[in-house]
C-alpha cells in the first residue's frame, strides 16, 4: 500500500468509454505525460485533491482485457499488478455495460480496491436504457458511480468513492468468481504454494495465470530463469499429480 499522503489511482477501461474524458474532468490541467519504461506506450498522469488529500491519477491505455495480448494490455495489467495503486477505477460505457463488465471482473480478480465509473449515463438514457448502479454495486461488491464525464456530472461522487476506498472507509468485497470444479481443485493446490512467494499479489490470480500458462507474467518472477510456465508447473512436486491431467 502506498503512503496515503500521496495515493495513486489507476484509471482503466475499454476503448471509447470516455476514459480520457473522465481523466481530464478529474485532473483538469494538472497533468503530464510520460513513457512506461521499456514500452512505447504513453501514460498520462494528473492530480486532483479531495479532503486535503492529493491523488495522482494515471490514465492507463484503453483495453478490452488484461491478458497481455498487446503492449497496451500488458502495460495496463502490469501497472495494476506491480504499482499497487491505492484505488483502480474502471470506466465502463453505460450503453454497452455487458461487454464492459469483462474488464471489471478481470480487475476485481487482481484487486478488491476498485471503483466502477459508469460513464455515458446520458447516452444510455437517450437510448432508453435504465442502469441500476446501486444494484450493480451490490452485485459486484464495489462502488459503482453513475457519471456523465462530458458535463462533469457524478465526478464529485466519483472522487468521494475513490477517497473512501483508498482510506478504507468503504470496505469493498468483490464477489469471488468460481470456476469449474477441476480448475478450483488445481487452484487450491497452487494458491497454497504461491501465497508465501508473492505476498503483495493475489495468489488466486497468479494461480489462474499459471494454469493458463501465461508466460508474460512468469517473466516478472523468473528474470534469470528460462524455465517456461508449463515446465515449472509440471515439475512442481506438489502439483504434478493433481494438476497435470488438466493441462493436456
Amino acid at each position, binding site marked *: 500500500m502506498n503512503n496515503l499522503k500521496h495515493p495513486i489511482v489507476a484509471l482503466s477501461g475499454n476503448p471509447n468509454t470516455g476514459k480520457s474524458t473522465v481523466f481530464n474532468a478529474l485532473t483538469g490541467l494538472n497533468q503530464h505525460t510520460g513513457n512506461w519504461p521499456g514500452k512505447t506506450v504513453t501514460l498520462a498522469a494528473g492530480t486532483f485533491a479531495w479532503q486535503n488529500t492529493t491523488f495522482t491519477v494515471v490514465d492507463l491505455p484503453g483495453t*478490452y*482485457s488484461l*491478458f497481455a*495480448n498487446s503492449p497496451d494490455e500488458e502495460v495496463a495489467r502490469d501497472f495494476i499488478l506491480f504499482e499497487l495503486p491505492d484505488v483502480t477505477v474502471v470506466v465502463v460505457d453505460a*450503453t*454497452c455495460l455487458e*461487454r464492459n463488465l469483462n474488464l471489471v471482473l478481470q480487475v476485481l480478480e487482481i484487486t478488491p480496491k476498485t471503483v466502477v465509473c459508469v460513464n455515458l449515463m446520458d447516452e444510455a438514457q437517450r437510448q432508453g436504457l435504465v442502469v441500476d448502479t446501486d444494484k450493480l454495486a451490490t452485485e459486484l461488491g464495489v462502488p459503482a458511480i453513475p457519471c456523465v464525464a462530458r458535463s462533469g456530472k457524478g465526478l464529485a461522487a466519483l472522487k468521494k468513492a475513490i477517497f473512501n476506498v483508498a482510506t478504507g472507509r468503504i470496505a469493498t468485497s468483490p464477489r469471488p468468481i468460481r470456476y469449474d470444479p477441476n480448475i478450483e481443485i488445481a487452484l487450491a493446490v497452487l494458491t497454497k504454494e504461491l501465497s508465501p512467494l508473492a505476498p503483495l499479489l493475489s495468489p488466486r490470480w497468479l494461480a489462474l495465470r499459471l494454469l493458463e500458462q501465461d508466460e508474460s507474467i512468469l517473466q516478472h518472477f523468473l528474470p534469470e530463469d528460462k524455465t517456461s510456465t508449463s515446465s515449472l508447473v509440471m515439475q512442481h512436486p506438489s502439483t504434478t499429480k493433481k494438476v497435470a491431467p488438466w493441462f493436456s
Partner: protein
Amino acid sequence: MAAANQDTIIPLSLLPNDSWGEIVAVEIMGPVKRRLLDLGLVPGTKIQFAFSSPLGDPRAYRVRGTLLALRANEAQSIMVRRSEQ
C-alpha cells in the same frame, strides 16, 4: 427453409445478411480465441451479420450492442445456431 434450419449449426461466415445467430462454439486456439472471448464472443451470445465490406472480407457483426469486424477465416471458426432477434 428457416424452420428446417433453426437447429442447424453453421459457421458464422454462412449466416445470411441481417439474420441473427447464437454462438455455440469458438473453434480457434491461442491468442485469437482469447481475443474473441474478451470481445464478448462467448457461447450463448447473440450475433448478427450487419454488413459486408465491398469484397466480402472483413464483415461487420453486431454483438452486445456494439459492431465489430471479423475476417472471413475467424468467422469460419465461430459456430452459430440460427436464432431470433
